[in-house]
């Protein structure tokens, strides 16, 4: 996959069929109240390596998810697609379908940007969106 592929936008159908997958390198800690803290390794570049040596900067960034974030994280099992997560979110928190979809897609994009999850898209959808 090229950088151009990575940056391409998916249409709604492809976004809903995408499967959120957890970052296998992420460490998960269960917190009080059923919430989770996720530690994601910071991507190593020459300057992060220098910085880490000089300042003993952490090698992981920690992201604490709230109640709903934890619920979403638990749905990212590599089998459930975004549309199914939207449905579950609607039922669990009594939300409108539209609100769930808009907020969840935005939230998943944010998690993906932080390296917590990746989004699996089928090759047909990638081709269609090209």
């Amino acid at each position: 996959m090229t950088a151009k592929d990575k940056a391409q936008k998916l249409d709604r159908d492809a976004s809903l069929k995408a499967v959120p997958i957890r970052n296998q390198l992420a460490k998960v800690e269960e917190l009080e109240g059923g919430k989770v803290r996720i530690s994601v390794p910071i991507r190593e570049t020459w300057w992060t390596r220098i910085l880490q040596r000089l300042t003993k900067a952490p090698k992981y960034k920690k992201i604490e998810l709230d109640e709903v974030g934890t619920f979403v994280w638990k749905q990212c099992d590599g089998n459930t697609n975004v549309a199914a997560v939207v449905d579950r979110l609607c039922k669990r928190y009594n939300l409108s379908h539209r609100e769930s979809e808009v907020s969840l897609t935005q939230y998943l994009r944010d998690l993906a940007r932080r390296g917590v999850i990746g989004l699996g898209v089928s090759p047909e959808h990638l081709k269609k969106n090209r």
Partner: protein
Amino acid sequence: MPQVKDWALFGWQGITLDVPLDWEIRRFHGTRSKGYARLEDGDDVRLEMRWDKSKGRGPSFTDLTDRHISGMMKKDKVDVERHTGLAKPEGKEVETYTVRPPETSLPPSYQMISRCPECSRIVMIRIPYQRGENIKAIVRRIFSSLQDHSYDGADVWSVYGLRFAVPDTVELDDALLYPGSIEFSFLKGHDRIELGRLAFGSVILERQTLEEWFEVFSKKRFKRMTYEARPQEIRGHQGLIAHGRLKRFGAMLLRFARRQRFHCDLWHCPVSDKLYYYAVLAGSRNHDNFVAHSARVICHPT
């Protein structure tokens, strides 16, 4: 979408419109005096809206629309068909027309320009549609429902089923949609209104009381405040009211200079099963007026 069963009120920056229930805001920028909002139905862009203030003694409305339409025809090479009587929102100067781009790949659209003689606001609305789609009745209702200024000094905001009103003197600072919550903050100088709807009322209250939850929530959300909270019914719902002020020593000077007080209403609406909060940090000039608008948050349909 020739037939629409359910309609909702869309309210943003002092402008309200009736729109089909599934058209919701996806993009926005700008301020109360000039800005842009886009509504989508999940698949497509359904409505785009721009607003601005007409400046002083500008051109007449007819000149303004003529110039806009001819500019559009020249620049984009579009075909424009003007309508008479498609919509006439009360008390406004209005021009409605259909725009058809030459490329078949681009959608045609119904558009309206309106200018309000009372508030001098110019609102431009664009509703794209698919070729062959008949949405005239929908467009008529949307265009006719336009309100572009407040009547009682309060702007109605209505998105994703959350409806409230805040004084028309405040500016939107931030609006956040997050799974399960929608939150707004407004500013007027250093005075602030924050409000939100959290969609997990009963899930939260399964494990803790409202007071316990507020303590944790306020530590993050209102960490600069010191307050006293007491349980109180709000609109017949279980709730609490907190009163306080800025807490840190560094804030003392500001506190004395601005005399800001903190007020927060928090309640659980069992009908919608959502938690609502409405918080104000304001000086004496705005405090009471801001707090009074807490009553304008609609937590469930009556």
